[in-house]
Every structure is written in C-alpha cells, then in structure tokens.
C-alpha cells in the first residue's frame, strides 16, 4: 500500500457520513471496497467472475422456469420433482439454449458423471451444421458492432449510434454494389464488387459517425443525444430512399433489388443454404486484431486511450482532443458500416429497412467484453449462442415453453454477465473522481467529508 493509502481509504469510505453522523458509513465503505476490488481484478479473475455470473443466472433461471411451470397449465407434466409436476423442464430448456445453438454436439452416451466415457461428440455431428452456422452468423455481425462501440468507449465516447451507422453503411454499400453490378459478374463480382461494397460501407458509416463526433468536438454536443437522434434519421431516411427511389419493382415488401449472384462471402465448408461464411468470420477476426493493434501499438491508439481515460492528461500530453474525438467516432462508425455491409451480404443479398438491433446489442457486447477488442469475440459468441439457442428452443417439439420466457432467460444471462463489468466501469469513474477531490485538498487526506465520491455517484 502506498503512503497515501492511509488517507485514501478513509477519504473514500467516509462518504457523506462525515456531516450527518456515521449512519451508512460502513455500507458505503463496503460498497466502495467491492468496487475497488472489481477495478483491481485481473483478467483471469474477471473471466472467473463472468463464469460465476453465468452459473448464477442459470440457477435463478431454473427457479423461474419451475415457478412458471407450476402456474402454467399443460396436459402432462414435462418433469417431476419431489412428486410435484412442472410444465416446463428447466434442464431441457437450458440444454436446448446452449447445446441447441451448437447443433447438439454431445453424445447422449457420454456421461462422465456416471462413469460413461463414450466418445464425447455425437456421431454424425460436425461443426458445420445449420444451427452453429446461425450462431456464428450472429457472432460475426455482433463482433463488428461490439468493436464499433468498444472503440468509441475506449476514447471515452458513448456511441449509441452504431445502429444508425450500420444502417447507413449497409444501404450505401448495397446501392454502390447495385450501381456497379452491370460491370462485373461471377468471380470478379466477388473479388472486386464485395471489397468495394465493404469500403463504401466503411466510408459512409464512418462519415455518419463523424457527424456526432464533430458535433461533440466542436460544438460540445452530448454524443448520447446526437447519436440517438441520428439513429432515427438514418432509419427513416433509409426507409424513404428504399421505398421511393430504390424499391425492387418485383417485390411487395420494401427492399432494394437483389445483389448480383457473385456478391457473397464464399461459404467454403458450410452448406450453401447456411448463411454463415468462415471467410467472413476470418475477415472479422482480422479486423478485431487490427483494432487491437491500432489501440495498443500506435501513437494514435495511445492518444485515443488517454483521451478516454483522462481527457486532461491527454491534453497535457499534447493530444488534440477535438481531432481524436472525430477520428475515433469515424473509426467506430466505419466498423458499424462494415457490420451493415456484412449483414446485408451474409443474410439477405439485398437491403431491407428495419434492421434488427445489432447496434444496440453491440453496446452490451462491448460492456461484456470490458471494452477490450479481443474480449468482444467471446462476448459476441455468447450473444450468438443465446440468439440461435432461442430459435432451437422454439423449433424443438419436446420443449414447449413460451417464447417470452426464453427472452427472460436470455436477458437474465446477459444482465448477470454484464453487471460485474458495468460496475467496474462505475468503480473506475468513482475512483477517478475520488482522486480528483483528493487532489483538490492538496493531497493531504480526508479533509472534506462530502468530497468527490458523492459527486461521482451523481454523475453516473
């Protein structure tokens, strides 16, 4: 512990207790030390915490499923515990949710708990099954939106506009590829048109991200407000453009013309009917690595991270705050634009307004990953499993539970796994503000009993 330590801890733990007595002092102190513990946690500990949160959320989910199963009416009980019948079987539900998303990889005879060490994988199971393809498609897009949010977060900017930037990128790249389609066909379409589409998506997504960036940097406009507003602008303008200008004449639904046949990510080992492409995923992994590299190994990344952690220190170190804000929002928007393009190419082959909320899921993915680009991949995979698993619950005739309840279970898992990271973010903020108040007192300890800690909480 440092010299300052003596006074630091009381400074934090004292809180408001100083003025109006000591009531609540211990509570506050305990809350602070929990937050401090979270902030100090190593990567390994954080993974363990996440796993523990996952297990806990399932335990609570089991109780909820059983309770719901008691109140529901059904012809025959799905499961019976202690002589009481329940309409829903929690273990089958979670089995579907997780293993269904992977295409049932486990051999039913493999049961090490009961001494059955048969081959662990089910005969005939391959990783290249449609369910896992679904999971990985979701993962691919969520990695991109998660990265988009994470880059902005690292720069201290809360980009809620990933959704809108994704719409703009997806639409722009679709239109660009459609416009150039007559010039290419077959393999050249894949080799030339697709990269052009990705570039155009990145460009327009980036420009659309740069707008709130510039508004924040030069007009001090809160990015949370502007990005939310720009989300509406993006989806409504996209709706107008598609419906009024680029409507597919042969379709009753609001969509653009189909992209030419060659514009797709080669499926390689997956069946043509599956939407997932290993190549697309590899491309996304490369982007993840590149993002990590830029943040960690370049001067620009250093500027960006410093601005995100301590804007005053960044300015002190010669960082141009305004430029850094615009640049990081541009990168964030570009990643969202690529997400939009990949979504269009991978899933539909045309643009249809009203994209699913990948951009908003990206916020949770990023928080889940602690805003670390490398952590975004497993976080997005968890999301992918939950989404695709929900579908396999619905399609399984043996599991008859309401889709709403599945949504509750998914939400529970996400909430539990994201909360520790979320509190880490809060803890960091509180620490930073606590540190500031400490400094104002000339570094001489707990002078003011109503100092920065309170202010910190007010800010969150």
């Amino acid at each position, binding site marked *: 512990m440092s*010299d300052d330590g003596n006074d630091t801890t009381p400074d934090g733990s004292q809180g408001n207790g100083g003025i109006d007595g000591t009531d609540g002092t211990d509570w506050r102190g305990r809350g602070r030390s929990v937050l401090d513990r979270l902030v100090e946690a190593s990567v390994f500990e954080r993974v363990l915490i996440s796993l523990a949160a996952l297990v806990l959320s399932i335990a609570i989910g089991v109780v909820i499923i059983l309770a719901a199963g008691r109140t529901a009416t059904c012809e025959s009980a799905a499961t019976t515990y202690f002589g009481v019948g329940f309409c829903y079987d929690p273990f089958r539900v979670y089995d579907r949710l997780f293993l269904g998303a992977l295409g049932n990889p486990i051999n039913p005879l493999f049961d090490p708990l009961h001494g059955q060490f048969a081959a662990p994988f089910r005969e005939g199971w391959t990783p290249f099954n449609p369910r896992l393809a679904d999971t990985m498609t979701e993962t691919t897009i969520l990695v991109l939106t998660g990265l988009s949010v994470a880059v902005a977060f690292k720069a201290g900017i809360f980009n809620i506009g990933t959704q809108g930037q994704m719409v703009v990128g997806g639409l722009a790249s679709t239109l660009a590829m459609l416009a150039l389609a007559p010039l290419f066909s077959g393999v050249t379409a894949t080799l030339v048109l697709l990269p052009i589409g990705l570039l155009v998506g990145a460009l327009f997504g980036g420009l659309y991200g740069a707008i709130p960036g510039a508004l924040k940097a030069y007009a001090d406009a809160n990015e949370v407000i502007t990005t939310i507003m720009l989300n509406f602008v993006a989806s409504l303008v996209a709706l107008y453009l598609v419906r009024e200008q680029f409507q597919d004449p042969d379709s009753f639904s609001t969509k653009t013309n189909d992209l030419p046949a060659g514009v797709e990510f080669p499926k390689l080992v997956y069946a043509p009917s599956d939407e997932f492409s290993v190549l697309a995923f590899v491309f996304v992994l490369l982007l993840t690595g590149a993002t990590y590299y830029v943040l960690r190994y370049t001067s620009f990344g250093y*500027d960006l991270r410093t601005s995100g952690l301590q804007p005053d220190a960044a300015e002190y170190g010669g960082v141009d705050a305004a430029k850094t804000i615009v640049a990081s929002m541009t990168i964030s928007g570009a990643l969202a634009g690529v997400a939009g393009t990949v979504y269009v190419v991978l899933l539909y082959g045309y643009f249809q307004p009203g994209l699913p909320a990948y951009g908003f899921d990206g916020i949770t993915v990023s928080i889940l990953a602690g805003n670390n680009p490398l952590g975004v991949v497993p976080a997005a995979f968890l999301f992918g499993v939950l989404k695709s698993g929900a579908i396999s619950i619905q399609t399984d005739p043996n599991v008859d539970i309401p889709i709403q309840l599945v949504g509750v279970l998914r939400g529970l898992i996400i909430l539990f796994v994201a909360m520790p990271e979320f509190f880490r973010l809060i803890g960091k903020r509180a*620490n930073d503000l606590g540190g500031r108040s400490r400094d104002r007192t000339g570094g001489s300890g707990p002078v003011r009993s109503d100092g920065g800690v309170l202010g910190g909480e007010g800010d969150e």
Partner: protein
Amino acid sequence: MTTAVHLDGITKRFPGVVANDDVDLPVERGTVHALLGENGAGKTTLMNVLYGLYSADEGRVIVDDVERHFDTPRDAIDAGIGMIHQHFMLVDPMTVAENVTLGSEPRKWGGLAVDRDAATRSVEDLCDRYGFDVPPEARIEDVSVGVQQRVEILKALYRGADTLILDEPTAVLTPQEVEDLFEVFDELTDQGKTIIFITHKLGEAMHAADEITVLRDGQNVGTVPADETTREQLAELMVGREVLLEVEKTPADPGDEVFAADGVTVRDERGIEVVSDVSLSVREGEVLGIAGVDGNGQSELVEALTGLRDPTSGRLSLAGDDVSEHSRRRRIEAGMAYIPEDRHEQGLVMDFDLVENGLLGSQHSPPYARRGRLSWNDARRHAEAIIDEYDVRPPNADARAGSLSGGNQQKFIVGREFARDPRFVVAMHPTRGVDIGSTEFIHEQLLGLRDRGAGVLLVSSQLDEVRGLSDRLAVMHDGEFMAVVDPAEVTEEEIGLLMAGERPGGVDEDAEPEPSTAQADGGER
C-alpha cells in the same frame, strides 16, 4: 495543569492499512498542540476519531478525565470538542451571524422564529471576549478567507467548544493571515481553550505550538516541547532519516533569454479576466519564481504558457521562435517541459502503468514512435531509466500510476519531464503534497537542470520554496505581477504584503481600486 483531551492507545484500521497504530496523545488544557507529520501519516484520521467521525478500533478517548464514546460529531461537540476543517463549511450568501448560529439559532415567539438580534448579539459577545474583528452582519462571500476561518472558529466556540481542532489551518492563508491566526491561538489559550492543529510545516509547528507531536506511518514517534526542539530534529522524526532542509544553491549564471511572454491576458471559462497583461522573461540557467496565494491567476497563466489554454492576447517566444500559435504538442517538441499542478488529473494517467505514463507527451516522438507505431521496448527502457534515476518506489514499471504514493508519482513526472532534456521548464507546485525527502530531491533536480542551462519558471504558493530556489521572484496578485524582487534581499513581510495586493511603503502604482477582500485582509491587523 490538567489534561483536556487524552487519546489513549488509539488504533484505527482501514481495509489494507493501519491508519493509526496505538497512538497515545495527551493534550494539556490551555495549550496549543501541533500534530505534525507527512501526508498519509494519519494525522487527520486521528483527529477524526477525536471528533466522532470515525470510531477507533482500539483505545480510549478521554475528555476531562472521563472516558467518552463518540458515535457522531454531535457527541463530540456536546463534550466540548470543535473541529475546523481545511475546507470551510459555510453558507456563502448568509451573514456571519447566521452561519455561526446555523443549526442552533436563538429562537423567539415561542420557538417559531429565529431571533436575529440575539444571534448578532451572541456573535458580538464572542468577538469581544476573544478579541476577534469580525463583522456579524457581513456576508461570508464578502469577507476574506482569513475572516472566514475565524467564523469557523466562532461556530465552534458558539457551540461551547473547549478544545478546538484545526486541520491544516494555514494552507489557504497569506503569511500575514497566518500571523493573525496564531495571535488568535494565543488569545484563545489565554482564556483556557485548548488547541490542536494539524500541519506538515515544521516552522509553523515550532512557532505556534507549545508542544509538538510527530506522527509517522500512523505511529506517535515523539512528543516534544516546541522550545526544546530544532527543525532538523522534527524533520528527522517526520521522515525517519536525516534531511537537508536548506537548499544549497550556487549563484545563477544566466545566459540568453530562452522564454519570453509579452502582454499575456487570459480570461477564464466565465469570461472574467484572470491574468491581466503579464510579461515575463526567463533566461538560460536561471529560475524565475512566481509567488502568490493560490487562485490569483497563476494556474491560468501557466496554462496559457504551456499551450493548454488560449490567452485572449499576448505573444510567447521560446528560444527566439514565436510559439504563440503553437499547439501543446509543438511546444513539447520545441523543448518545453511542464510539471503540472494537478498530477492526478494531468500529469499522469492513473489507470496506465508507468511504461505507458512514461510515454505521455512523447507518444509521437522517436525513438518511442516511428511512423505512427509505438515501440513498447523503448518505452519500457525509458520508464525503467526514470524509475532508476529518480528513485521511484516501488521500482516496478508495470505498477499502475494510481497505486504510487504522491511523492513517487511526482518524482516520476519530474523524471519524465526532465528526461526530455528541456530548454525551458515550467514547474507548478512541484512539491505540493510531497514528503520532505522527495521535496529535497526534486529541488536538487530542478537546480541541477538550471545549472545545465535550462530556464526554469517555478510557481509555488509555498514561500520557503520559491524564495529558496528562485534567482528572481515575481509576486502575483489578482492576475498581475505586483513586483519582481530579489529573493535574497526581500523580507517575508514584504512578500506577504505583495501577495495580499499591497505595495510596501505605501507606494501604490495601481490606480484601480483593488478588490476589497485582499485589502481588507491585509489591513486587518
């Protein structure tokens, strides 16, 4: 003599630290007792135990020979203990009398209304009794900091305090106000009150106290009568080793002008002019000091010089080049180093380790960056060199900056800034909140840099520091330089008057009427 307060074997633990370790502190009635120690020694914690803000894990609090248990400050106040915090807790738009009586106002009409006249009368009575010159009807926002402090003391006395605890009472005062405060101490002790004051300044403890208790690492390392000790002995008790208190300075050998500011005017966020037409010049191999009470425009001036704030007008030149329009980054690259006032917010990124912090300011310069790519190997070597040369502890480049003590954080900043081999250094409060041992070291380094030919601009509100290190000394008040003096010849009184906005000898070149606060203050004696 009787014992007014006796803290007997107080131990107070916080998660991970022992803030007070079996501290014994008897205080005689009617005396001034100084509690001396470095930051983090546990002084404030100990006093918070006495004031009922914390409850001790072990030990007894004995007031007037009766053991007491204080759960809240209210209990302590009822037992005759009052505490004046470093930051005043006053309501600015309310009058002195209202503030003094706040929470226990005299009532009239059967308790329905506040009896303002009675409140004013009690405050007047208190002032008469203790010889305070405080106008009961004045608003807090209109009186000087020194007077505000007296209002805090009155608040405690009004609530029947016999023992007054003051936490770093001199930190916000000019030298004259400090003298006034110590006279108040005398007056109060004459009337049987007991005073405990917290300080980390040796001179004040020796000057104002009857007895001095030194805390180090939460332990009482000695209680000595003030007239039987020396500064050297106290410093050794505080730090635990022998300390060189006086800076050994060779005469300056100034060369060419390295930095000049001409007519710099700065407005703050609210548009108020906080620096008015200041010009200065620093030559190679000299230290120009700027003294002044905090908040007289020093921060804004320094930010304007270093490129963190746009001045309204003025020209700056560094080594002959006009740098008025240069960004912060270009100024760094042109050889300007800056030890900032606020190391937690500016000087270090608390969440970065020392390797990353060593890069701050050099993240675009070779060898640490080439064509936009960082070399973490070079950065690590750089950080390790700083840690080694400047004795940063713990000597671990992977340690988070926020985990270091204040002194070590400051040493790391100083090391990083000096490692640029700067032509011109701006050092703002370079030793604020830094222990004596590190202070000594930082002073040596600053002078060493000067002797190697750099120009140094030193801003500090600690008179000893600016006087000891500067070759020329400017005194700043209300956004202007009052005078530039020779620190070897000027007296503390003269500087004090300049800091308060008065030119000595009745010469007032300033035609403008000075803002009332500072003047009322200076003339108060």
